[in-house]
């Protein structure tokens, strides 16, 4: 009897931990916002067109491989959980510092896209279409959005796990309902311009060229961005041997399922042209056409809650990364300041809000049309870069362990390496393609703006690092380390791989 009671209690505890692992994994990628921000631009890539769901499928592969690098590095160095500290260990201080820089700049760049989406969808929620189309109105609303979100992070207000679960349930329900509703209409009513779903949409081989697929995958990395943080958090939850592994698989399948069904339904309903024409707000345009009023508002609210969750999971880790860099004496010490009441990294948070606002305003002013698509593409470069170095850092850090058994060899060696090589490959190929202004929506100084923003921000990091080297000599004299079972302390090899 006693055993039975204990077992039941334990089961319940694990069940809750398991569910919240799934929630964290899915919520930190913000599926509603990710689709709203990327789907139109993926379809718009010449040569991709109707094969957008296939791009969603292929993009997942490198992210899946890199997730193992996160898992292993997190196990050896569970303390710091950032590419900054892992790359410092595996590759040395310069790579680590640049990795930290890449995290910060990608987070700043994504704020422009987030606040633009949030502003447009806020106006659409109240049917204020003229404001949604006015650049000045969007800019003002976007700045207010950044301010509010920074304030929330500064005050340390957090939604309870329960609220997050409810919001995510609504998000998944709404997206699924939208997909089913759209497909039902396609097959029953045959609205003008609609297409029937075809198997070829899901096949990478139906993308016209390999180059087009690569360019699509660069955008696709964005929609899975954040999935890794779910995996990292998973490690610390109870029953970490099997629960998190299973949760990661479930959240992954859930995410893939949502992306495939929603992208297929969206293009079946409106055809590619509708998605391309409304790339800034695909879901709101489709929502009003697919759903009867007032149900269409549900989709808009979903994107808004998704964007707010995403903004929080952008500001919080950035502040954490700069705090970490300050503590390891690689960044100005004031970034390590903590607010004594709110217990938040106050200086880092405010700084993040201010830089994001400046970035958002200047990108809106400098490159008024279609900044959204280009900055999402630009993000792909930063993400590919720091995920890539995390993969390499993992392989080097574990290099002496790889020959010990096949599991370590495969999960800490092969997968991270494959992930890193493919991400660097995507980086290189996209760099060539997107440098040509002809292949992009906008250009800055004659270079396609995705490259100017994405690669330019990384190069700026190299310049800043040159000065940082003089200032933070102690940090920059650190040597790369190798995994040492004696100092790792914790479980060295996961008992149960994902």
């Amino acid at each position, binding site marked *: 009897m006693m055993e039975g009671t204990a077992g039941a209690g334990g089961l319940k505890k694990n069940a809750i931990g398991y569910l919240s692992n799934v929630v*964290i994994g899915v919520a*930190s990628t913000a599926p509603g916002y990710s689709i709203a921000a990327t789907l139109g631009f993926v379809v718009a890539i010449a040569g991709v067109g109707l094969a957008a769901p296939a791009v969603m499928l292929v993009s997942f592969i490198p992210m899946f491989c890199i997730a193992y690098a996160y898992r292993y590095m997190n196990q050896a160095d*569970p*303390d*710091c*959980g*950032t590419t900054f*500290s892992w790359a410092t260990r595996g590759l040395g201080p310069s790579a680590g510092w640049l990795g930290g820089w890449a995290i910060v700049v990608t987070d700043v760049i994504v704020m422009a896209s987030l606040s633009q989406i949030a502003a447009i969808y806020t106006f659409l929620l109240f049917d204020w279409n003229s404001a949604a189309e006015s650049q000045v109105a969007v800019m003002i609303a976007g700045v207010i959005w950044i301010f509010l979100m920074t304030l929330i992070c500064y*005050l*340390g*207000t*957090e939604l309870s*796990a329960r609220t997050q679960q409810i919001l995510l349930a609504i998000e998944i329900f709404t997206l699924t309902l939208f997909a089913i509703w759209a497909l039902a209409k396609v097959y029953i009513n045959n609205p003008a311009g609609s297409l029937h779903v075809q198997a070829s949409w899901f096949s990478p081989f139906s993308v016209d060229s390999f180059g087009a697929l690569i360019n699509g995958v660069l955008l696709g990395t964005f929609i899975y961005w954040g999935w890794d*943080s779910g995996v*990292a*958090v998973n490690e*610390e939850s109870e029953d970490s041997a099997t629960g998190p592994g299973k949760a990661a698989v479930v959240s992954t399948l859930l995410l893939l399922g949502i992306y495939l069904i929603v992208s297929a339904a969206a293009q079946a309903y409106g055809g590619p042209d509708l998605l391309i024409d409304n790339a800034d707000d695909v879901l709101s345009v489709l929502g009003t056409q697919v759903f009867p009023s007032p149900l269409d508002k549900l989709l808009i609210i979903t994107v808004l809650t998704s964007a707010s969750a995403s903004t*929080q*999971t952008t500001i*919080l*880790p950035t502040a*954490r990364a700069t*705090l*970490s860099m300050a*503590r*390891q004496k690689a960044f100005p010490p004031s970034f*390590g300041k*903590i607010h*004594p*009441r*709110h*217990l938040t*990294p106050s200086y880092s948070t405010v700084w993040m809000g201010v830089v994001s606002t400046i970035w958002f305003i200047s990108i809106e002013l400098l490159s008024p049309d279609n900044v959204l698509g280009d900055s999402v593409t630009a993000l792909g470069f930063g993400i590919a870069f720091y995920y890539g170095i995390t993969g390499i850092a993992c392989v080097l850090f574990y290099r002496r362990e790889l020959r010990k058994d096949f599991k370590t060899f495969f999960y800490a060696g092969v997968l991270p390496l494959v992930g890193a090589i493919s991400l660097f490959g995507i980086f290189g190929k996209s760099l060539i393609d997107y440098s040509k202004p002809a292949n992009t929506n906008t250009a800055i100084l004659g270079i396609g703006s995705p490259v100017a923003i994405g690669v330019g921000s990384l190069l700026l990091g190299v310049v800043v690092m040159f000065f940082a080297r003089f200032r933070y000599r102690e940090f920059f004299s650190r040597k790369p380390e190798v995994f040492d079972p004696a100092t790792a302390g914790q479980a060295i090899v996961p008992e149960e791989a994902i």
Partner: protein
Amino acid sequence: MANVIVVGYDGADGAQAALAESLDLCRDLEAELVAVFGYGVPIPERESADYRETLRELGEKFTDEAVRRAEEAGVKASAEVVFEKAAQALVDAAAKHDARMIVVGSHGEGPLAGALLGSVPHRLVHLAEQPVLVVRR
């Protein structure tokens, strides 16, 4: 039950009042003081030990200050810095030391934040097994 009084201390005005009151009580009851600081943070932040470390250092700074003031007042005192939210940290510390009561300030974070977050004393009176003394600033 041990002759121990647990006080929540985060350096704020409310906590100052709570500390002063609990020191008076400790002297009158010849009790020991345990100064507690809880620093539980939202899930995404838990990944970073650098952040946790910074918070712990902050907590130690506060509780050291409380312990020093207690010793100046002739009260035997110790500190607990716990990775839990404030209310839970106090409940845990009270259970650990088998305390006779818990003393907290009425609000540390301002009335608005208190309303939004659900204030520590409010949670505490529901969670704690011991009597809770709420001291107004």
